[in-house]
Each structure stands twice: as C-alpha cells, then as structure tokens.
C-alpha cells in the first residue's frame, strides 16, 4: 500500500493561551490538491510549516511518504517539499538571480522553462525582481520553488496579498500543476476558493484535525458543517 504524502501522528505544538496544534492525527493523500481550511488562527499555517520543517512539533511524528521527517536531512527535505508563502518575497537582483538562489547551476534555457511553468513571460528573466507586480512576484516565487525540483508544493494562503485576477491565475496554475502529477497542499480560509480547488479537504479548528474527506463534505460532523456553511448563509 502506498504511504500517504504526509501523515501526522499526535503532533502537538504549545501556544501562549492554547496549543497551536493539539494532538493532530491525520493523513494527506499523495495526489491532486488537498486544501487545508479552517478559521483564521486555527493552526493551518503551523501545520504546513511543520511539513517543510520550518517548525518542529514538541511531540508527535510527521511522516513524509512513510519516512519520519525528523530523521531526514532537513535541507534535502526542504528542497523536496517546496513552499510558497502568503506574501511573495523577492530577493535582491533579477528574476534569474532569484531562480539561482534555489539552484545556482540554472542556465537561461532552464530558467525560461521554469518561468513558463509558472505562467510568466520569458521576457521577465532579467527584470529586477523588486519591480514585479504582486501576481508576477508570487508566480516568480512559485518558479523559484519549482527550481529545486520539488515532489510536492505547500501553498500557504498564496493569494491573500493578490487581486482577483492574479488569484485566479495562480489557482489555475495550481490546478494545472496538480493535474500534472505534482501534489499540492493549499491553505486557505476562503471557502469559495476551497470549493474551486480541493480534490481533498482537511478542516482544522482550534489546532485540531477536525475532519477530512471529499470537498462536498457530505458526512462532516456538525462543527465542521457549521464552519463550511458560513459563506452559504
């Protein structure tokens, strides 16, 4: 049997007033787009950051394709598990310089190919990355992630700083990459976006793995159903 993409086994991280993650058990499938949804401050981003090992649980185990990530080389693991953050961060220099931070050996042909995969014009390659629009910058960040040859993409509310048109382009791109066999884990509290994107849905509430299942959430418990029905009211 194929192991899940990520498996959480009693994952806990303490917080000031309540745990940021409280004894999380669950699995993320190794295909398509999994959306982590939940109210703001529920622990979705914390869980995602644990997957890239930007944070480490105080107790519990996280497995990536069956391997405990605490036993994996952290740098190699991070290159296998690409991460796109809420606010696009362009490093100093050109777009090509940015791609070369991820992989210093990248030549122009490979760089152009990465830009095209991220729905960016090849003409931007030598542009100062600081002059890109928000949407372009976020897609450049995606191209930079793809430069490490990741086996999965973690997207932490990547459209929260973008306008509607740029958000739509990034969502289309995510669906496209998911369809090409690159699994994605996408965090959002936007329920409409969740419905547009999810092949599989995970709901996090108060640091707990409240439920997971198909995006129609037909058999979800009342607590989850109440959260998912919010924008339909």
């Amino acid at each position, binding site marked *: 049997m194929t192991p899940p993409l990520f498996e959480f086994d009693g994952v806990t991280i303490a917080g000031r007033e309540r745990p940021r993650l409280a004894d999380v058990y669950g699995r993320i499938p190794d295909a398509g787009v999994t959306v982590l949804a939940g109210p703001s401050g529920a622990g979705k981003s914390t869980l995602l950051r644990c997957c890239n090992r*930007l944070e480490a649980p105080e107790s519990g185990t996280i497995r990536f394709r069956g391997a405990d990530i605490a036993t994996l080389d952290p740098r190699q693991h*991070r*290159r296998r598990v*690409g991460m796109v953050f809420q606010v696009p961060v362009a*490093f100093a220099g050109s777009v090509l310089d940015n791609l070369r931070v*991820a992989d210093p050996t990248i030549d122009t042909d490979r760089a152009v190919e990465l830009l095209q995969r991220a729905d960016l014009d090849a003409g931007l390659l030598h542009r100062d990355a600081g002059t890109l629009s928000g949407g372009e910058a976020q897609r450049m960040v995606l191209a930079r992630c793809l430069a490490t040859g990741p086996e999965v993409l973690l997207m932490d509310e990547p459209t929260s700083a973008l306008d509607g048109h740029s958000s739509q382009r990034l969502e289309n791109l995510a669906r496209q990459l998911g369809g090409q066999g690159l699994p994605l884990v996408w965090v959002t509290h936007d329920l409409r976006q969740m419905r547009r994107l999810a092949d599989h849905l995970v709901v996090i509430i108060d640091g707990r793995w409240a439920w997971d299942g198909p995006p129609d959430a037909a058999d979800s418990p009342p607590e989850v159903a109440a959260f998912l029905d919010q924008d339909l009211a």
Partner: protein
Amino acid sequence: MTNQVVAWSGLVASMVFVGLAIGISYWQQLRLERRIAVAVVRSLAQLMVVGVALVAVVKPSTPLVWSWLWVAAIVVFAGVTVARRAPAIPGLLKVSLACNATVAGLNLAVIYGFGIFPLEGRTLVPVAGMTIGNAMNAGVVGATRLAEVVAERRAEIEARVALGLPGPEALRPFIRQILRTAMGPQIESTAALGIVFLPGAMTGLVLAGVAPLDAVRTQLALMYVILAGVAMTTMFTVLGASRQVMTPDDRLLVVPRRRD
C-alpha cells in the same frame, strides 16, 4: 594643579553640555534623558575609581598581574555590555565574552609582540581599554542590528531556508550588510583622523608634553590595532550570534522586536 589639566571647576562647567544633551532629548521626545543622566553619573563614578586605581597599577613596583586582572575585568564588562544590548539573541553572553577575550588577546599580542609599546602597567590597562572599548561598540552595533534583522526580515530569511539553503547561507546577505554597518564608524574615524578630530591618546600625550610627532606615531599604531580589533570583534560577534538564532536544523528562532 597645572594649566594642562581641567580643574574641578572646569569639570562642573562641562555639565552644561550634559544639560544640553538632556534638553535635546526632552525637546525631541527621544526619552533618553534618564539614560543620558545614568551614563554621565556612571562615567563620573567609574572614571574616579579608575583614576585612583590607575595610580596604584601604573607604579613600576606594582606586579603586572594586577594590570592583567584589570584587562580581564574589561573583557568581561565588554562581553556583558554586548549581551545586554541585544537580549533577544539567546546565548549571546558566551559568544561576546569569547569574542572580546580572543580579540583582546590578539590585539595585545600584536601590540606587545611587535614592541609598539613596552609591556608595563602604565600602558597595558589604557591600551586594552581603548582597543576593547572600540571593539565593544562595534560588537554592540553588530549584535543589535542582527536582532533587528532577524525580527524584521524573518519572511525573507525563512523563504531562503524553505528552499533548502543552510542557515548561514540564508543569513549571508544580511550578515554582510550588518558587518558593513558595524565597521563603518571605525573606518570613518580612521579616515577622518587628524582632519575632523584629534584622537584621545594623541591629545593626551601632547597635553602631557610629548612631542607631537611622537604622539602621532603612537596614535596611528593604536588606531590600526583598534581598526583590526573592530573588524575581528564585529565578525566574530555577528557570525557567532547568527549561529544562536538558528537551530541545528536551520529553523529560525523567534526573536521579538525591540519596543523602544
């Protein structure tokens, strides 16, 4: 008392300038009045004690070990000062103590090894004080700037770490900038020597009756040693402290922003 030194009345008169500094802080709402007052009172008390103690230490009959103990105390004080100025960086005290001790050792080895000064009580404490004092200032700038960068540029540092870059490499662009900032004032001081200001050691020697060219040679040698000390302390402190803000698996620790 001679006309070569400031009389007590002159010292009291100089307090007018302290009042001016406090006045500026109050006018511009800098909230530095208390810190200025404390710094002035401390400088008065410390230098009075030092003045009395130096009389004993510089006597040719006093064993040199007392001067070395004094130097050790300067090193500890400098280390503690750096650590206190950037309390958000965990484990900074041991880093800054090690840096100041190493740099003091290297500086004094060069000064006395090359015979720039004779190894005597009257030279050891003042020379160590000047070199370590300047190095400490640069260390403070380096450590506080690092704490600010880690708090304010967290997103950029984590974006680099998330790409699989080793921690030191993720911090490298910032470290370079911090080192330039911390070393800048000493480079400027060295460049402006004799044009903008006449440095303390030289002024003191001239006031004490030493021939100006002899005083200049002494001052230049000291400035170059101080410059190297500043460069070394800044580098060791910032690189050492940068190891303290990351875990062995390159996770960036939470460094709170300063509130003042």
